[in-house]
């Protein structure tokens, strides 16, 4: 009997694992199980192009039926997995079907953290294509729009809504600045001003007490008592891993599936993407990365480990996440944030582009935030954890185009 790999989860982590198995010459069956009925699709565009109407569902498809057939990937869509029998090597689906496997890949991702204020009409979370489609429809009715949570998703939704011409957009977060978990106060303040310049009302440093349904819409009540009338509310307050279906598996679950450094939760049980909690290669401890690039890199690593169990590879990601807001691209790599010392390096066009470089207390380069300056990002992604801050500062400064350097020095 030919070997079988069952991949549970049809977002980018699952799809890339299937493709990487085939490109490595895996000779067994590859079965890709997805809960949603639509063809596997890519999630980053949901808060940008799909909301804006510049990308369709077809544009963001990761794997069409025909591409799956050509690659020898058996797609089982609209089929939720409900149980994993580790000892019996079986995945049970909601309709009772049992899938036997030799290797299984857990790639069920994460879901939007549910709204603590219920789900009255007009209140949205954004995680799936269906979420994006219904939110896009509501945004076309105009404002007011209140976005609760100024992380990446919330900040992108606010920017996209302004691009759509929604007039009255308010971005609310109990933290003092947007994306404050990963940005220091100076860079976060720069983004707060970017949103304000584009006409977004920002309410930072104040929480939300409740969202009430009224006759003609919703009212978001802030912690200081301010009522914000809203036609549409978006709640972007993080994500929680989809690991409930593994409750009876005996695997260790703790904010995701706990894995070893080879992304293995048990023998022949691998995990990829947002659901996987893995040891951090440099800082120690366990962590989940809810980032596209991490899922793709981990997928390649896990596919290798399935094909070559005799020579498994360690998953050693350098964190990388990007966010497109207005006409700026924000790119983060490594360990960043307000607790670290940092220096700013002006970019080729200092009004629009710069790099913030962060150091660990011992002076080692920890990570960077770059704004609309991809060449600086490349240097920083390669340098994380290996060089001093000063070495990276010199390399990044040297990446300014020579013809334009005179303007900024």
């Amino acid at each position: 009997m030919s070997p079988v790999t069952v991949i549970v989860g049809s977002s980018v982590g699952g799809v890339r694992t299937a493709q990487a198995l085939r490109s490595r010459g895996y000779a067994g069956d590859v079965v890709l199980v997805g809960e949603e009925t639509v063809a596997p699709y890519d999630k980053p565009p949901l808060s940008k192009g799909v909301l804006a109407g510049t990308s369709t569902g077809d544009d963001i498809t990761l794997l069409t039926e025909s591409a799956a057939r050509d690659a020898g990937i058996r797609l089982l869509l609209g089929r939720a997995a409900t149980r994993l029998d580790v000892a019996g090597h079986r995945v049970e689906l909601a309709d009772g079907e049992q899938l036997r496997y030799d290797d299984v890949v857990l790639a069920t991702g994460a879901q939007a953290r549910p709204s603590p204020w219920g789900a009255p009409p007009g209140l949205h979370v954004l995680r799936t294509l269906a979420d994006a489609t219904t939110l896009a429809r509501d945004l076309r009715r105009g404002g007011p729009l209140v976005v609760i949570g100024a992380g990446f998703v919330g900040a992108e939704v606010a920017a996209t809504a302004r691009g759509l011409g929604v007039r009255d957009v308010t971005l609310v977060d109990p933290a003092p600045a947007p994306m404050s978990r990963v940005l220091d106060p100076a860079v976060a303040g720069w983004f707060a001003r970017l949103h304000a310049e584009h006409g977004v009302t920002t309410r930072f440093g104040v929480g939300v007490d409740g969202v009430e349904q009224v006759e003609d819409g919703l009212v978001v009540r802030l912690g200081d008592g301010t009522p914000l009338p809203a036609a549409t509310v978006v709640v972007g307050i993080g994500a929680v891993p989809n690991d409930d279906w593994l409750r009876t598996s005996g695997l260790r679950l703790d904010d995701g599936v706990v894995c070893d450094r080879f992304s293995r939760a048990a023998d022949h049980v691998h995990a990829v993407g947002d659901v996987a909690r893995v040891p951090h290669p440099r800082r120690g401890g366990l962590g989940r990365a809810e980032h596209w690039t991490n899922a793709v890199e981990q997928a390649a690593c896990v596919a290798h480990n399935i094909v070559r169990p005799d020579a498994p590879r360690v998953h050693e990601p350098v964190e990388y996440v990007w966010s497109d807001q207005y006409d700026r691209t924000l790119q983060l790599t490594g360990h960043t944030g307000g607790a670290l010392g940092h220096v700013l390096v002006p970019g080729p066009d200092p009004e629009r582009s710069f790099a913030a470089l962060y150091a660990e207390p011992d002076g080692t380069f920890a990570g960077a935030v770059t704004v609309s300056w991809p060449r600086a990002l490349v240097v920083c992604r390669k340098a994380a954890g290996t060089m001093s801050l000063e070495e990276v500062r010199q390399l990044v400064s040297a990446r300014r185009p020579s013809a334009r350097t005179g303007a900024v020095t």
Partner: protein
Amino acid sequence: MALVKADLDLCQGYANCVVAADDVFDLDDDGLVVVLRKEVSGSEMDRISDAARSCPVAALRVETP
């Protein structure tokens, strides 16, 4: 032997390809991909295919003739 192709209309400078294979990919001053070497050998296929698949906007292809 395979050929590496990049679609500059799609490239957004995410740099995943450069990090995965800096002997084949780089970025120019405008942050767009530069293919340093168009031909890759069979022994490099896994690595370069992984690099191409790591592009967030599917701007890269590795084509076998």
